[in-house]
């Protein structure tokens, strides 16, 4: 097993765990955590393809991931703010009860 494969396997596992969490949990913050996990799995992939790819000396992959993490932070902040707003409005953070956008 090459190091790249190991990395990819871990990242896939991480993605699967994050997805499972995001899909199954009812609490909004836990769902958000799941999403963060999936995002980090993607970041791990990016690092892995950079590190074991054709040009590891260029810092492109690393920089890309840094940007991605910054965005993830911002996204988490927005997500949390939304969740707080919803909680204030509906007095709940159970996602099953938040279905205003139902068709």
């Amino acid at each position: 097993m090459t190091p790249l494969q190991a990395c990819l396997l871990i990242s896939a596992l991480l993605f699967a765990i994050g997805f499972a969490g995001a899909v199954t949990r009812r609490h909004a913050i836990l769902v958000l955590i799941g999403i963060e996990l999936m995002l980090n799995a993607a970041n791990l992939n990016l690092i892995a393809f950079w590190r074991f790819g054709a040009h590891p000396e260029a810092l492109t992959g690393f920089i890309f991931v840094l940007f991605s993490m910054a965005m993830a932070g911002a996204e988490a902040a927005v997500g949390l703010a939304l969740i707080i707003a919803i909680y204030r409005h509906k007095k709940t953070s159970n996602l099953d009860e938040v279905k205003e956008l139902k068709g």
Partner: protein
Amino acid sequence: MIWIVKNLWLIPALPLFAAGIIAVNKQPARKLAASLAIGSMALGFLLSLCAFAATLGHHGDGVFREVFSFPWIQFGGQWMDIGWVLDPLTAIMLVMVTFVGMLIFIFSVGYMAHDQNFMRFFCFLALFASGMLGVVIANNLLLLFISWEIVGLTSYLLIGFWYHKPSAAAAAKKAFITTRIGDLGLLIGMVWLYAETGTLNFYDGGHGCLEQSALTTMLAHATIGGLAVSTAIGLLIFLGAVGKSGQIPLHVWLPDAMEGPTPVSALIHAATMVAAGVFLVARVYPLMAAGAAPVEHGTPVTTALTVVTWIGAITAIFAATIAVAQNDIKRILAYSTVSQLGYMMMGLGVGGVAVGMFHLITHAFFKALLFLGSGSVIHGCHEEQDVRKMGGLKKYMPVTFAVYAVGMLALSGFPLLFSGFWSKDEILHHASLWSVSKIPFYLGCTGALFTAFYMTRQMGLVFFGSYRGHEEKSAHGHFAHAHSHPSETDHSHDPHESPAVMTVPLIILAGFAILLGFVGTPAWPWFDGYLTGEEFKFDFSKLTEPGTLALMGTSALIVFFGIGLGVFLYGKRQRKTASEKDVLEAAQPAIYKLLENKYFIDEIYEATVIRFNAFAAWLCDFADQWIFGGAVLLVKYITVGLAWLYRLTDEYFVNLGFDTGCEALREGGGGLSKLHTGRVQTYLRVIGVALVALIIFLIWGRKA
């Protein structure tokens, strides 16, 4: 330019304003109405005298003629002028119309004193005078036509003044429609004239349609049958004159028009309206006479003038014979007017403007006198118009009798002293010299005989013998006027003399009926010289020239014979009762019946024109109802059928299909919207499953 020419418009404008003011005033203002109308006429008369004075003293140096025109309305690139002219013809007519009109107005104050619609009457009278004066001053066929139609309208209003009488309403309609036929000719002639010459001005410093250049152009063009355009236009214009002046075959309205109040009859049938036709022919005389070969003596002969002469001559004798057998005092005068208008036309045809106009002027005075006299008689006899029920009025109404006798003698043409003699003699004199035919002369002489005869008959029946009005006084229905006399019931039924307001105008008119003749005698042809602008001198020897003397002698003989016959038949042997047969009826029942029924002209029209008209109307109605109506109905049914079809397709195909489609779409949308649960995690799951499916698909795809 003399001030009077510029201000000539005032003469018709004054009565127009008077009519307007009367019309807008509150109803019972009799004094105001009468004084306004009479005042406007009096002022107009003074102005007319000024105009007349301006035209005097031009003998020998051509005709005095001043025009005043200004552009009125624009047709495309051309301006239509309108304006007035002052020449002897206008001046003499102005003086006559305003003077006679004024006297008639004054007379009306007395005659209409008891009428409720006194103000309306004076309003119409003033409007009528205004229209008539407009006709007289017009230097433009357009202005003339406008005024001409005002005259036509007001004559309709005045004849139908007592419109609650069905006969009056019918007579008004008859007058209006009959004259309309002539007016159509006039209108066509007018339009044609405009098309030919580009102007409707009579005189315009060489460019007018009656002046040499325009006449030459019109003569050069020929139309159907080789007639020059000028002749054709002249004849069309003459058609208007025929309608207005009651010439054959459009004379039928004039006797019926006697249903109007008597002053109206005097105004319309003596002085003005009927004279308008003669005046029109006199006005367009240059057009009528255009193209005649130059003649040394006598008058030009053209096709148009020949037609005028014949129509006039036939009308003269035709109407005179009818007058012999009429019993209504006003109808006798009406037929007499028709006959005298025939003389005027004949005079215009054979002798030119001066001859016809001279008779017009003298006739205006004595016929107005006769009509107003008959009004006085009718008034005095309590609205009785049937001469058989009068008689012996000499005793009751001496003033009326005297002036009526003057009028009668003037109309009959009693020699030397009365105006009618001189003017009629002038016509006969020219007729005897006419180069085309002598027949109009003989017709005129015979007409003169009848004229003397029927006037004597009328005098005999009305003024001599004994009063026959007492019989069956309560039974007859002539009283059915709104014109009721409240005091009449307690009065005796004897006739009475009319008040001074009625007799004074009569006396004045009688004076003129005598005196006017002397301005146009062969010895002193002032009138002729005045109108033609030629030199003349007092020459007593002309009276005794063999030709003139012989003619005067003949004419006098005819008159004496006519009067003698009348005296013999109606003066000596007076009828005893009103219902007794007429002398002529007893002698010649067939002829009398023919004359009494006016040669059955009305019946002939009834059987031909009216029936044809009714048939045409029926035909049009039929066509309208079945042919055009059918077509319209067909179109309607087609449209309705198509509409029904469209509705069907719309309802059952378009709508249903659309509805079904919509329903399906909505259900589909509803179904799909179920997927949209609003639960974020469900979406996420779907995305996850889809991702897995996509990956599986990609992997399998790679393998294959």
